[in-house]
C-alpha cells in the first residue's frame, strides 16, 4: 500500500521553522521582560502567555482576522508576494510559532533571570555592552534551559492541530501536516496510515522530550 510521507516532512519543516522563529523572537521578548522595566510590561507578559491558555481554534480565528486576505497584513503580503498568506505552509509556521512561543518566553526569562547578577555586573564593569553581555555571558550561562525549552517548543509545534487547521487548512500535498493527516486518515478509515503516522510522531516526540529532560537536568558546570 502506498504511504504518503509528505505530511510528516511538512510537519518537521514547519516545526523546525517555527522553533527557530520562536527562539529568536522569544529570546528577545524574554530578555526585555527580564532586564527592562517599561510601561505595559505586565500586559506584554500576559499577552505572551495567552496562546498557552486559549483554545487553539480561538487562536486560529484571531490569526485569520489578523493575517486573513481581508486584513491589512494579509493584503500587504499579497501585494508584495503576489499570493495569499493564509492556507499556505507559511501560515502553518505562523500558527505553530504562536503556539510554541509562550513556552520559550517563560523558560528563557526564568533562565536569564537566574544568571548570577555578580557575573552580569562584572561583565558590565569590565566594559561590556549589553549586547556583548548577552551573547558572551548571559546566553551561554542560560543556554541549557533555553535549549530544553526550544526542544519542547519543537515538540509542541509538531503536534499543533487546531490553529494550523483554521489558518492553513487541510490541503493534501500542500498544507496537510502530520497531525491533520492523522485526523483525516482516521476519519476516512485509513487505519494503516493513521497508525504509522501515530507511531512515528510518538517516537519522535518521546525522543524530543527525553532530550529536553536531559538538557534540563545537567546543570551548567562550566
Amino acid at each position, binding site marked *: 500500500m502506498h504511504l504518503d510521507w509528505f505530511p510528516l516532512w511538512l510537519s518537521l519543516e514547519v516545526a523546525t521553522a517555527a522553533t527557530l522563529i520562536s527562539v529568536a523572537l522569544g529570546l528577545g521578548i524574554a530578555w526585555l521582560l527580564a532586564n527592562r522595566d517599561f510601561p505595559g510590561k505586565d500586559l506584554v507578559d500576559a499577552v505572551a502567555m495567552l496562546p498557552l491558555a486559549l483554545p487553539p481554534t480561538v487562536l486560529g480565528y484571531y490569526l485569520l482576522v489578523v493575517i486573513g486576505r481581508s486584513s491589512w497584513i494579509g493584503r500587504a503580503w499579497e501585494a508584495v508576494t503576489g499570493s495569499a498568506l493564509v492556507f499556505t505552509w507559511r501560515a502553518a509556521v505562523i500558527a505553530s510559532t504562536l503556539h510554541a512561543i509562550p513556552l520559550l518566553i517563560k523558560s528563557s526569562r526564568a533562565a536569564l533571570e537566574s544568571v*548570577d547578577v*555578580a557575573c552580569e*555586573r*562584572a561583565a*558590565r*564593569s*569590565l566594559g*561590556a555592552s549589553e549586547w556583548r553581555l548577552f551573547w558572551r555571558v548571559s546566553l551561554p*550561562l542560560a543556554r541549557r534551559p533555553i535549549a530544553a525549552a526550544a526542544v519542547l517548543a519543537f515538540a509542541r509545534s509538531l503536534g499543533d492541530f487546531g490553529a494550523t487547521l483554521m489558518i492553513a487548512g487541510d490541503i493534501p500535498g500542500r498544507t496537510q501536516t502530520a497531525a491533520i493527516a492523522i485526523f483525516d486518515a482516521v476519519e476516512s478509515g485509513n487505519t494503516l496510515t493513521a497508525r504509522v503516522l501515530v507511531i512515528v510522531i510518538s517516537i519522535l516526540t518521546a525522543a524530543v522530550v527525553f532530550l529536553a529532560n536531559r538538557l534540563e537536568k545537567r546543570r551548567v558546570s*562550566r
Partner: protein
Amino acid sequence: MLRATITKRFPAGPESAGFTLNIEFEAAPGVTVLYGPSGSGKTLTLDTAAGFVTPDSGRILLNDRILFDSGAHVHLPPRDRQCGYVFQSYALFPHMTVRANLAFAANRLPRLERHRRIAELLDRFRIADLAGRFPHELSGGQKQRVSIARSLIASPEVLLLDEPANGLDAALRADLHSIILEIRQSLAIPILLVTHNAEECFMLSDRVLIFEGGSIVHRAAPLELLRNPGTESVARLLGGFNVYEAEVVTLDPGRQTSRVRLLDTEIDGPHLRGCFLGDRVVLCMRPEELRIATRPGANRIRGFLVRATDRMQSVRADFGHDLIVDTPRGDWPALKESGERDGWWIELPAAFLRQIGRGQTGRTVGVIG
C-alpha cells in the same frame, strides 16, 4: 581621586525596614577601608561608585570625570566608568577559561596590546600556568587572584574590593594582603576596600571610613583610630577597647587633670572637656595599656580574675566589667602566683584613659563582686 556625595533611600517594605545611605567622602590614591557592621552601606557605596545602583541624589567624581550627577542628569553606565570591581563571590565567568576571562576584560584594548597585557597580568599574579583552566577547577585563592587580575586588565582608575578576604584561610589572607599592598604601591589609584575585619583595617589602610546605619560616623588614619576611636560606638565596632562609664568627681582644668569614680573606685582621670562635676563620661583604654598589680596603689581597682586566655604573644586576663588586660606571656606565671595569693589590682594609668563620649546620667555604674 574619587569624590562622592550621595543619598540613596530604600523605602521600608513589608519584610524589610527602610534604609538610607547618606554619605560624603573622598578617596585619594592609596587604600581607603570601608569598615562597619554588615548592613551599614559599605557594599552599597561600592555599587553606587561602580554604577550598579543609581543614587537618588548627589554627585560622584572620579579624577576629572563626572560619573554621576543627579542635578545634571548624568549617570554613566558601568561599562564607561573605568572602575575595577572585585566581587565577594569573585564573579568569574564559569564558562570561560582563566585566559578567556582576562581576554573578556581586555576587549577594548588594541589587539597587540591585548595579548601583552593579558600575559603581563597572568605573570604578575602567578596564574600563567592556570590560564587554560576553568574557574571550577581553581582553589579559592586562585580564583581571588584571577578576579583581581581581571579587574586590573583595563587599567581602571579606581579599584573596588568587596570583602576580598571572606572565606580565605590565614595563609591565603596574608597572600591577599600582600597583593593589595603591592597594587597600592605600583598603581597610584584609589583602592576602596570593604571589610569588617579590624585587623585588615589597621594593616592595609591609609585611611578608614567607619560606616554605621548608612552614614560615615568617623574617618581617620588607622593609627589615629587606634589611639583614639573618638566615639563609644566606633570603639565598640572596632573591638579591642575596654569601655568604661565614670562619674566626674573633681575637675582641675589648670593642671588638665580630673578625678573620676569608675567601678566604685576613685581614680585620676584625663583632662575632660565640656564636663561638670557629677557628669557621667565614657572612657576607653586598650587591653595592653592596663597593668596588673598584686597590691593596692594609685589608680588601681580591685578585681577578681574571671578567666585567662592564651593569645599569640600575650596572655589576656579578663576581670569582668571590661577590665581586660593583655600581659606579656613571660610575666604571667609569676603574676598569677602572687595574684592568686595576695589578690588582684588593675591599674588604669590616667594617661591612657581617653574620653570618647558623655554618658547618660542616672545610669548605674557597675559594682565589682
